[in-house]
């Protein structure tokens, strides 16, 4: 390996160690005073050095940048040292609300309520509190409009919103749909008969 590349690898590792946010390749190039191509080579090299399972930290691409994270196999030891309890998993209401914001953003609170069929204030405010979604403005009528945050991408390990799974994957099969339609028709006839 050429000595310059080696130095750049070391610099990138140091920068990612120090920075509390993911760093873009462009910012790395500026800080290391090399071009983006050299950064890409150095990053590929660092990625090999930190190949999952080989060291205590890994290189990850999240929220549009590069960052270091601990290897998941070390989680138990880390929680014992830092006395850090696991954050609670998402509740059903929070997960649904987060999915609506993630796929439809920017989206207003009344729109979330319309899709879920129930007022979603408490889910919206607990997601805001956890920093996963944030206000991105107000609608004409003053309703808060939400989008996901950079923290959302970081804790979900997403390089960007494009990395979200295609939502049509979750659409029911035509059989399910027919089944649903028939059940509703039957219910409607019953009511009409009363």
């Amino acid at each position, binding site marked *: 390996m050429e000595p310059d590349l080696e130095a750049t690898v070391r610099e990138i590792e140091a920068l990612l*160690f*120090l920075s*509390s946010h993911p760093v873009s390749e462009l910012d790395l190039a500026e800080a290391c005073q090399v071009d983006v191509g050299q950064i890409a080579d150095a990053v590929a090299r660092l990625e090999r050095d930190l190949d999952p399972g080989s060291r205590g930290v*890994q290189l*990850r691409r999240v929220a549009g940048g590069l*960052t*270091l*994270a*601990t*290897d*998941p*196999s070390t*989680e138990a030891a*880390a929680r014992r040292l830092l006395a850090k309890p*696991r*954050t609670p*998993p*998402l509740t*059903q209401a*929070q*997960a*649904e*609300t*987060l*999915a*609506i914001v*993630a*796929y439809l953003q920017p989206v207003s*609170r*009344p729109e979330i*309520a*319309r*899709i*879920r*069929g*129930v*007022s979603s204030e408490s889910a919206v405010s607990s997601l805001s509190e956890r920093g996963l979604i944030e206000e991105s403005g107000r609608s004409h*009528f*003053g*309703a*808060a409009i939400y989008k996901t945050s950079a923290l959302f991408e*970081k*804790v*979900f*390990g997403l390089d960007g919103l494009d990395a979200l*799974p295609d*939502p*049509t994957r*979750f*659409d*029911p099969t035509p059989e399910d*749909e027919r089944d*649903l*339609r028939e059940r*509703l*028709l039957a219910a*409607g*006839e019953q009511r*009409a008969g009363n």
Partner: protein
Amino acid sequence: MTSRLDLDLDLDLDVFVGPFDLLLTIVLREEVSLLEVELGEVVASYVTRLEEQGEIELEVATEFLVLIAALLELKSRLMLPGVEEELSEMEPAEAVEELVARMLEYRRYRDAGHELAAHLESQRGYMYRSAPLPPDFRRVAVDAAEAVYEPDQLAAAFGDLLQPPERPDLSHIVTTVSLQRRLSVLRSALTQLSRFDFDDEFGGEDRLTQAVTIFALLELYSTGEAVWEQSENCGPITVRRLVPSASVAGAG
């Protein structure tokens, strides 16, 4: 509901600022979605208003209750997937299509939500560092530093420090009560008596001194040196020593 209300209540909500009757008007004209109006805050404003007035005008209160109940009913219907209201106008097949579309949309996000929740679980083992930058990076590097401060600022600050303070004007002085002093008074009282009545000991002092003495008593309570009892409101306070006088003296 259309006549002028006697109720004059100003609101400051997320979606609306202004009088209650104007809110009613624009809700009825659908200029603001009732779904976005925090009716709980409207009630809270009204209750605050009642507290300020200190009396209830029965007619106005009744009017408010009727209106807020109507709004609550309207809002709860809006929040439910209004099967009865909206679909009654439609043909059954049309209504079913409408409902199917809504339910499919909901299902998509429900299932996407399940997936997100599971994905989050899979990511929890990755932990990120969040440590402050080392001190060297938080300050200017000597090489890069530029002259930004005026040296005279230091000389002037030095001059200020040479200035002896003005002799204080004592004419207005009010006696101050020292918590330390009250603590030692209490401790010495407790070395002589294992229990005493607060008024017997301190009833003759002025209000400030008595208040600071109570404060000192709280301190002794928290250090475990004394407790006190008061069997009725405004009744006599009995202070009781908790530790042998020797160690109290030692602690003092």
